[in-house]
């Protein structure tokens, strides 16, 4: 059909079919030459070996400090003592319960922060008056340590989960909202123009163009939001302990202090660190990598 149209519309007799075929062949050649295939390379060693070495180094320095008696054992417990604390918790069967108490709280709080921070960020990014009113407050809140919210939250709600979630929200909502705002601000104007010519205006424009285009910034905000959720939760758990709240990682740390159990304190700190990193590595990093890779924003290797 295509070739008949051309034959009809070309004013020169001759061989239009051949020209079209020529063009097609030339194009096929160019396409094959120019497609860049990302080489699938095994980056396992490059990604896993360096952090593994770094951890080994830290442990080695730690052990050296202990065995050379550079510091007092009441100031720095031996790695083996911390390991013993861990096995003890494991044998008591409470290790995972403690971790889960904090993680479930942290994730639920984070999801709440997500549900509030996203529409808030979108409003601040898109509505000028809202940005003028709330923008500075949101940035300011981000630099306020969320531990500051623990005393008022305890006075408002008492020692319960509501108080914990309040502290998490006040810590995480600003960073999620701010992440989305900077994501929206960095959307190339070209995409907005292209969207408008395609008819994506108003809500359609936000849904089809602005949100997906802002996704990398938004994800960075979520990552930071999780870090803030986790930190806020730990602050709340350390300060406010009550039997009603159950035993989380923060309380574990605080209990260690009360019992002058330095290995226990170190163990709690390490667990808090590991959980924070694990959630980031298991959820946010793969998500971010997927988004960036699919857009060609990260060069492999």
């Amino acid at each position: 059909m295509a070739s008949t149209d051309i034959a009809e519309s070309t004013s020169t007799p001759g061989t239009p079919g051949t020209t079209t075929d020529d063009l097609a062949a030339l194009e096929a050649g160019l396409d094959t030459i120019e497609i860049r295939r990302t080489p699938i390379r095994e980056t396992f060693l490059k990604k896993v070996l360096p952090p593994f070495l770094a951890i080994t180094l830290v442990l080695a320095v730690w052990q050296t400090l202990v065995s050379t008696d550079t510091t007092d054992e009441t100031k720095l417990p031996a790695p083996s003592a911390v390991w013993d604390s861990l096995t003890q918790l494991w044998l008591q069967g409470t290790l995972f319960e403690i971790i889960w108490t904090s993680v479930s709280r942290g994730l639920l709080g984070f999801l709440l922060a997500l549900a509030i921070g996203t529409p808030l960020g979108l409003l601040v990014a898109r509505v000028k008056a809202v940005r003028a009113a709330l923008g500075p407050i949101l940035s300011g809140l981000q630099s306020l340590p969320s531990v500051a919210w623990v005393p008022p939250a305890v006075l408002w709600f008492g020692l319960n989960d509501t108080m914990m979630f309040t502290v998490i929200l006040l810590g995480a909502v600003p960073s999620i909202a701010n992440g989305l705002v900077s994501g929206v601000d960095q959307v190339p104007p070209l995409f907005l123009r292209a969207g408008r010519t395609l008819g994506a205006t108003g809500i359609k424009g936000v849904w089809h163009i602005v949100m997906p285009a802002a996704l990398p910034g938004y994800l960075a905000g979520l990552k930071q939001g999780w870090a803030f959720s986790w930190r806020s939760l730990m602050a709340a758990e350390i300060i406010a302990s009550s039997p009603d709240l159950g035993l989380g990682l923060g309380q574990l740390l605080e209990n260690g202090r009360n019992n002058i159990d330095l290995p226990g304190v170190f163990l709690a700190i390490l667990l808090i660190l590991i959980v924070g990193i694990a959630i980031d590595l298991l959820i946010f990093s793969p998500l971010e990598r997927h988004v960036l890779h699919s857009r060609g924003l990260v060069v492999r290797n």
Partner: protein
Amino acid sequence: MATNFAKAARGINAAGLAAGLEHVSKSFVSPAGQQLVLDDISLDVAPGEFVTILGASGCGKSTLLNLVAGLDQPTTGSINTPGGRPALMFQEHALFPWLTAGKNIELALRLRGVPKSERHTEAKRLLELVRLGGAHGKRVHELSGGMRQRVAMARALAQDSDLLLMDEPFAAVDAITRDVLHGELTRIWEETNLSVLFVTHNVREAVRLAQRVVLLSSRPGRIAKEWTVDIPQPRRIEDSAVAELSLEITEHLRREIRRHGQH
């Protein structure tokens, strides 16, 4: 012929115009005061006509295209596009990197109101029209520069507009790819009977593609001269007839630019 009837049924207005610009002027307010960018431009594009607007950098040709696209409003004068919102292609492909090539086109179809069940087939058809039938699931960054512009062309065609506006769409690709894209554009233009308003600073490109070349002077942009190109298609950019006319137009373009140095 069939396409012509379809276009007529879709309601090209009585005057038979794809785009009509009447005494269009545009000025921007800058710190230095009011700056006139376009001065009294009157231009008609007939249905199925291929017009290139040629001018040196800063002559306001992109501004003119934005006005026709409805992305900006003229200061005075009126712009009429009876066929509805024109499709627009940019110098950058402007494809959305979070979607595959096919989904970019399907988004355009969706925004036009094409039912979900038809979008995939229609996207495939449009990709085949630009000879990228196999690229439906490809990510934008996996495509070469020329392929991206062809997907962008397919996406513009997905708008099913009577008028396609092109803002130096081939300025950023290499010469051989540009040559191929010229061939594709001519072929698609002939197959679809689209009206095209094509902006460029490349004289040979203008002559290679257009039925009519409109030369714009710079600061402010005014229509300096017009040429009708009656070299039969398919042309080649190396054709002697193309070269000859290009030489003549280049002389005028130079004269326009020299005038600026004198005051």
